[in-house]
C-alpha cells in the first residue's frame, strides 16, 4: 500500500534567511501618531509587524521594506526611511 505524499510547505520563520537584508527603505513608526488600529499588522504580507503589549513593532530581521504598511496607515504614522550603508 503506497502512502500518499502531498507537496505541502509548513510556515516557518526565516526559512528563506534574514530577508530584512533585501530592504532599501525601512518603515519607521511615529508612536505619537499611531492609533493602534492594527491595519499595518493586518496588511503586512510578511507578518513582520508584531504586537507586543498593544504596541506595534516592526521586525527588521524580516521586513523587506515593501512599504504597504506606510501606504495603508490611515494616521500617516509610518514613514519609509532610506537605509544607510553601514559604516558611513
Amino acid at each position, binding site marked *: 500500500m*503506497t502512502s*500518499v*505524499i*502531498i*507537496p*505541502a*510547505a*509548513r*510556515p516557518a520563520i526565516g526559512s528563506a534567511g534574514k530577508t530584512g537584508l533585501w530592504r532599501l527603505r525601512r518603515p519607521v513608526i511615529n508612536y505619537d501618531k499611531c492609533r493602534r488600529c492594527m491595519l499595518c499588522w493586518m496588511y503586512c504580507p510578511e507578518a513582520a509587524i508584531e504586537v507586543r503589549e498593544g504596541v506595534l513593532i516592526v521586525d527588521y530581521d524580516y521586513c523587506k521594506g515593501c512599504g504597504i504598511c506606510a501606504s495603508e496607515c490611515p494616521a500617516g504614522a509610518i514613514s519609509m526611511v532610506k537605509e544607510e550603508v553601514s559604516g558611513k
Partner: protein
Amino acid sequence: MRLVLTGNHAAAYAVKLARVNVVAAYPITPQTSVIEKISEFVEKGELNARLIRVESEHSAMAAVIGAAFAGARAYTATSAQGLLYMYEMVWWAAGARLPIVMGLVTRGIAPPWSIWTDHADFMSIRDSGWAMLFAASAQEVLDLTIIAFKLAEELMLPVAVGWDAFIVSHTAEPVHVPEQDAVDRFLGEPKRAPAAVDFDDPKSIGALAFPKDYPLFRENIHETLRGASPKLRRLEEEYSKVVGRKSLGLIEEIMCDDAEVVIVAMGAAAGEAVEVARALRREGVRVGVARVRSVRPFPEEDLARIAEKAGALVVLDRSYSLGIGGVIALETRAVLHRRGVTVPVKEVVAGLGGQEIPLEVLRRTVLNVARERG
C-alpha cells in the same frame, strides 16, 4: 427506478446521487447539457450544491480544486478545447492529490473545428496522474461517475469519466437509476484530501521541490495508479452488489472465450466492433471484442491474458498520436512487451472527429489477421 436518459443527463443524475457539494463548469458543446441538468437539480432544491459559474475552464478546474481543498465533493465537466484551456489546472489537481471527478464528453480538437467524437482530448491527460474511465452507454456513464467519486477518494487522485459526443452524450436510452439510499451506502461521507484545509495544521500547497525530491512525487502517483486495478475492480463489485447489477471489470469481454482474434475498442465504437465480430463469426472466424473501460489504471493484466489466449489483437483506436499511431494500440504493445507476450497487434485508427467506423476496413483487417495466423 428506470428513466429514459441521455448520457449527459445520466451523468447529472450520478452527480445528484453522489450528493456533490460543489460544481463549477463552463459550457461547451457537447458537454453543456450535463451542467444544464445539474443546474436544474440545484434550482429545484433536489441537489444541495453550490454551482459556480466561471469565466473559463481554467477557472472551472481552479474552483473545484479550491472546493476539494476545503473538503468538499467536487465535480466539473468539459470537452476538447475546454479541457485544453484548463490543462494547467488538470495537472494541479493530480499533483495536489485531490479527489475531483470530471466528465469528459469526447470531441475532436480544433483546427479544423469539430464537435463530434474523437478520443484525442481524453487521451491528452493520460500522463497527468488522473485515473481515467470510459463509458459506452448512458447507463455506464451513470455507474462509472458514481464509482469515480469513491475511486477518487480511495486513491486521492482525480478521476475523469469519458463518453462519446452525441453517440452517447445525446442519445436517450433506458437507464436504471439506483435509489439514493443505495448510493449513500456505497459512497459514504466525502473523504477529505490529505491536503485539505486544517486550521490546526496550517500549510501551503504548492511547495517548491528541489531535484532530489521532485521524482518522489511523480513516483508516488505512478505507484498509486499502478496499484489501482484491484481497487477499481473491488469498488465496482461493491457497487454492483448495492445496485443489483453485474460488474464488468476494467475490460468488458464479449465472445472472447473461444476467440482466435480479439478486437480491442473503447467507448461507442465497441458496438461497431461487436457488429464486425458477429458478421465474421457467421463466416466461421471466431472473433471477440475486449471493450476497454479504464485507461488509467491501464488494464495490463487483462490485455495480457486476453492476448495470450487469443493469439492476435486488432486495436480499434479513436485517438491518434500523430506521427506514431493509435494510442491504445501503442500502449497495448508496450504492456504486452513488458510481460513478454509476443502476439501480433494490428491497429486501425478510425472514427476520428465523428467519422463513421468503416466496418468493411475493420472486417478485412480482422480477417487478414485471422488468415495470417492460419
